[in-house]
């Protein structure tokens, strides 16, 4: 399954109320490193087992970025039971993203 595109309207339903942990990729189209990370995130979305993957375009969703204190991208944030549990800023390899999800 591809990463779910999430907006301010769907964030609560898709992320905060999710039964499984959610990896959220905060990105923007002008951000080079984001474009580098996105394919890896998409790959994880396809293989996701026991978690799901969502993406937020911060250009379109400035309020969400502000709400979660995103001040650098790419930023990966893991939510469990409606709470942020871990985050990582910058490009990291797939293995490290999996570690971020697993905790």
């Amino acid at each position, binding site marked *: 399954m591809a990463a779910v595109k999430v907006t301010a309207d769907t964030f609560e339903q898709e992320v905060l109320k999710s039964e499984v942990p959610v990896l959220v990729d905060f990105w923007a189209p002008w951000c080079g490193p984001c474009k*580098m990370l996105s394919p890896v995130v998409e790959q994880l979305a396809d293989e996701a087992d026991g978690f799901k993957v969502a993406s937020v375009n911060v250009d379109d969703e400035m309020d969400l970025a502000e709400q979660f204190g995103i001040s650098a991208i790419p930023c990966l944030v893991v939510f469990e039971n409606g709470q942020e549990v871990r985050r990582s800023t910058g490009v990291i390899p797939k293995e490290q993203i999996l570690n971020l999800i697993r905790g």
Partner: protein
Amino acid sequence: MKDLIIIGAGPAGLTAAVYALRAGRSVLLLEAKNYGGQIVNTPEIENYPGLKSVSGFDFAQALYEQATGFGAELVYEKACGIEDRNGIKAVLTESGHEYEGRAVIIATGAKNRPLGLPREEELIGRGISYCATCDGMFFRKKDVAVCGGGNTALEDAFFLSNYCNKVYVIHRRDEFRGSAKDLEKLKTRPNVEFVLNANVTDLIGDAKLTAVEVTDKLTGEKREIPVSGLFVAIGQIPDNLAFTGVAKLDGSGYIEAGEDCRTGTPGVYTAGDCRTKEVRQLTTAAADGAVAALAASSGLE
């Protein structure tokens, strides 16, 4: 075993891969972070010969595809040492693997120099940034500070002054290394305030940055400046300490090597920003990659 192991998949390492592969050698690239290196953060490159304008990401992507198209293999692991085993080089990685090659090119590049303050790393993405053009938009209408006195610091401060409520420029001296023209331009900005002869001595804020403590170098007086962002632009540092067994480093940590890219250890070469050199530019990194790859290749004959 590969003919050539290249440590670092930035412009120097990827160019070296292209040249070595075209010379018929097999190549393994080891990359700790992302291919492309620092250039992926550059919005527009306008000084690469033959390309009028290209984004850093597009450039890196094209070079990566060129190298892998010729058959380069890339593994995302951080090299942490090189051992010589009867002429065969073994590159050890932090993941605990080792890769053998007949020759090695060290092309680890350079990274942004941190201030070296406690909690600095923890606050990256929570107010601390090393790239104004990447992260500036998140500080729209907010108060921020730029630390540094070179071209990057001045350009960053100018860029940020377009969006931010207030921009403090904190610099340890009262003179700037950056261009006089940029400084004059910056001085015309009503929302820019210079804090000179001052060091950032503490980062304040729990979950995110809320203020910086600056210490006046002349009077020793400390004060807090409330900011939600601090952009650190105090130059670059190399990352070569893992290779002191096979290469000599200068006082700043760069690998001592001339334009021939030879380290002095047979079979070990170096290319790009990690090498001692006068000009660190995209073109000179690419040039080094070619020189090192052809030297390594002929050394294998």
